């Protein structure tokens, strides 16, 4: 079973470190080039982390979704009337997201005061959204629909609640970013991940709205 052509020492010499990646498993991952100026060329850690958070939160809601869809199939399913205030909340969250993107672009143009203003308003709108969600809960409760009232109401409270907890997390990130813009000019490391997560939560909210009331 010995190989006929025994590999020799010199065949084993790899290319120079940091040189072009050879064939093999590293293709596509690429090796961050740290030869020149330290960490400048690396992907910021927080950017990787935020995408991983997005992945894990997606799986969390995928799990909720699968049980929701399975439960919907049962004959005793009764659909809830969508609380009207959700339209308003959705609009608020959308504006918040758009403002965040606008302020990012202003930031790229080095318009730091605009960046800061947009960020602060977006954050405030996030708080308004959360308040609006709580209002929606109270409105529902006032009409006698509670967590355990029907399968749909259980899922409504569960999904909006789980989303709300993540919104809270997103708000903390945004608050942190607001704080950072006060002390330092470069906000990329904090601002971008927070914005990514916030946009994700916006998309997640639209998804939940469609899931809960339109299918």
């Amino acid at each position, binding site marked *: 079973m010995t190989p006929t052509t025994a590999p020799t020492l010199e065949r084993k010499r*790899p290319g*120079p470190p940091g040189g072009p990646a050879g064939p093999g498993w*590293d293709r596509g991952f690429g090796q961050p080039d740290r030869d020149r100026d330290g960490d400048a060329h690396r992907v910021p850690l927080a950017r990787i982390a935020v995408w991983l958070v997005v992945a894990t939160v997606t799986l969390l809601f995928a799990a909720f979704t699968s049980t929701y869809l399975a439960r919907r199939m049962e004959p005793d399913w009764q659909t809830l009337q969508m609380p009207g205030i959700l339209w308003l909340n959705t609009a608020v969250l959308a504006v918040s997201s758009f403002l965040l993107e606008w302020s990012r672009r202003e930031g790229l143009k080095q318009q730091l005061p605009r960046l800061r203003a947009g960020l602060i308003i977006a954050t405030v709108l996030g708080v308004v959204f959360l308040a609006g969600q709580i209002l929606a809960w109270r409105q529902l409760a006032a009409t006698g629909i509670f967590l355990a009232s029907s399968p749909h109401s259980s899922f409504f409270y569960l999904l909006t609640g789980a989303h709300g907890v993540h919104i809270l997390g997103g708000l903390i990130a945004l608050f942190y970013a607001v704080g950072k813009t006060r002390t330092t000019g470069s906000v990329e490391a904090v601002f971008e991940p927070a914005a990514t997560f916030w946009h994700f939560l916006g998309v997640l909210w639209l998804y939940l709205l469609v899931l809960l009331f339109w299918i």
Partner: protein
Amino acid sequence: MTVTHDHTHAEHRQSFITRWIFSQDHKVIGIQYLMTSLLMAAIGGFLSMLIRMQLGFPTWNFYWAQWLFPGGFADFKMKPDFYPAVVTMHGTIMVFFVLTTALSGGFGNFLIPLTIGARDMAFPFLNMMSYWLYPPAIVILLISFLVTGGAAAAGWTAYPPLSALRNAVPGSLWGQTLWLVSLALLIVGFLFGSLNYITTVFNLRARGMTMSRLPLVTWAQFLTAILMLLSFPVLFAAVIMLLFDRHLGTSFFIPSGLVVGSQLVTHQGGNPILWQHLFWFLGHPEVYVLILPPMGIVSEILSNNSRKPIFGYTFMVGSLSAITFLSFLVWGHHMFTSGMHPLVGTAFMVTTLLIAVPSAIKVFNWLATLWRAQIRFTSAMLFAIGFVSLFVTGGLTGVFLASPAVDIYFQDTFFVVAHFHFVMASAALFGLFAGTYHWFPKMFGRMMNERLGKIHFWLTFVGIYATFYPMHFAGTAGMMRRIFSTTQYEFLRGLAGMNMFISVAAFGLGIAQLIFAYNFINSWIRGPKADRNPWKSNTLEWQTESPPPHGNWGAHEPTVHRWPYDYSVPGATDDFIPQTVPAVPAVSGAAVDESDGKPT
């Protein structure tokens, strides 16, 4: 130039507390995880002894046990309502609080930054948080033994409605709630950890450390982290919904029209099967969370002690990845008898049997690594070889259980118990032992006693086969899992003697572990000092001091020039060439192949 960057906080003044308790150093966190897991292993192992006492010697009086568990024993014999709680806690502790935490939390934390040449994890603070969610989870779990009704008793799988209705079983009164809360905490910790691992491997590799030069142990940890990141949120969702069902009146998993404990249940229209889908969507990846890290550990140790490159590195990485991917598609094989559509069963059979292919590749590659090797029998190597045998034995019984028609008979019998105790308990445990013997010098700067290590191996290897192999036959005879006693059934009459034998073997196995405990503690205190590279190994962690200093590498991070398996390279003076050794001029006349360290 690679100079110390912002992850070096070596100069920080550190008190005892920040250094050893609330440490953000990945090595300390890894050791904390490992030590806590070993403590939990003692508790989980002790519970298994209680199980074996009841199954092997149901008529004996156990005075000390009644003293220890006044609520669980009466007339010095175990009460039937204590048994399910013991079984449940044994399973829960071993799966989540021992093997996951030790193999992923312990070895992952310790080895990932060291093997990739990083100074620490990407997010040291998050890493510390990850560990510090674990002790509270343990406290909450163990306190449940003391609450009214005792600990959770619905099995480690916690199938509702048994786990959802408070009067279905005593443990569902309060114990189950504590179980769920404890697990939720632990899951959050696992998610922090895996987020950290993935980011670290992506971003903090040393110069020259391409993915294709990553040691297999690191590959395994990396893929395990991906598995955990994508499967644990699903269990988290299920845990939240079950908590809602138990305390907030929802009916996600509780159907209408139930009568439990002569009381009509008021819940309406849930479906208990949904829990099973969610649970096993985690649960099956979870068994690979337990077995991938040992696969990596064993690959490392086999190669190092064979003084040979690991055979088929590319296939090894490929099969690890294939297992990772396929493990998300096989959860249904736990539910063949739950009433699923037959075609769904067929689909899950196909995916499940396919996952045997990458497993087979790994086994044959390990065998090929041993071929014409120069084997060095360290304690770690003995356990690594034992792992291969156990993994084969346990893996093959999986072929039975993957086939739904066969599974009709074997489902929920001791055949299943034997299967998973071989493949994910014993094999994973052997990986844990092998890893501990191998990396102990690096963790503590001292050598373990090899003589005791070998005695520990012989007793454990024989003990494991003696304990778990006969369980297959308890299964073929039809003995159900989680039954308190076999005396109620005529078809189980013949099993009393075998159960006694299994119990005696299990007690021996348990006692043999005391040798390990003694060796671990004794070597930690007064073992001989270890030098940098006691096993003459290639990987980066062995190129720094033992134990590595805070920041791991002193002033300069290592630069990587080759893959980690240059053992017994023809023409080289030593039988190993560490990854940090730069290219030497080619021997006269031969062409230089620029393909990255692996011959074509």
